[in-house]
């Protein structure tokens, strides 16, 4: 199993979700991190606060956001969650509209680097977002990120 696949614990993948705006989308992704035991509820607030303060620089590719906040006590384990959106939302980024949200939680500044390297390998493929959206089940998503 790849580090990337392992980063998505039980309950961390939420498909075809409805969010009214980007804050709700980030909150859903925060719920995925919480469900899989990576973070407490507060981490979603920290991700939203980071975007409100510094802008949507976590929207790193067309249609793809990777919200995150700094490592603090709300992070219990390094991991990721995924939300695919039934209807895209705008973050105010040049990469809008966003259709998939990968939240990232890291315990410190080092241990997730290999994980991010694997993620970068997938996310740099221009077809990645469409491939994710065409997966109707979590099992298919897991095959894609394997």
């Amino acid at each position, binding site marked *: 199993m790849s580090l990337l696949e392992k980063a998505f614990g039980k309950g961390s993948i939420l498909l075809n979700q409805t969010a009214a705006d980007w804050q709700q989308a980030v909150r859903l992704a925060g719920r995925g991190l919480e469900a899989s035991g990576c973070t407490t509820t507060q981490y979603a607030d920290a991700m939203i606060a*980071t975007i409100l*303060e*510094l*802008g*949507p*620089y*976590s929207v*790193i*590719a067309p249609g793809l956001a*990777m919200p*995150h*906040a*700094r*490592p603090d006590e709300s992070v219990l384990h390094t991991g990721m969650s995924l939300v695919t959106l039934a209807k895209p939302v705008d973050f105010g980024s*040049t*990469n809008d509209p966003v259709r998939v949200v990968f939240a*990232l939680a*890291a315990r410190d*500044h080092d241990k*997730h*680097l290999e994980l*991010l*390297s694997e993620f*970068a390998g997938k*996310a*740099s493929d221009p077809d990645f977002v469409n491939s994710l959206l065409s997966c109707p089940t979590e099992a298919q998503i897991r095959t894609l990120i394997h």
Partner: protein
Amino acid sequence: MKIIAVCGAGIGTSVLLKMNAEKVLRSLNLDATVEAADLETARASRDAQILLTTPELVEKLQGLPSEVIAIEHVFDLGEIGDKLSAALL
């Protein structure tokens, strides 16, 4: 030569920028170390020739001795290559 890739938390966007900048530097045969850092660390550092970041954060990095380069698309190696070459060559 030192380059710092910067984002607010120093764990996500900056790390992806660092990885892609390293790829580009290798292909251009340029010798530089790239570190990922949060805004505060980057602001406190005085020894980087270049700060690599996203357009949202350029304003927060003004007044430092380093040149600030904004990358619109973190995975666009062409854009990173063009902007780094313009600054370094």
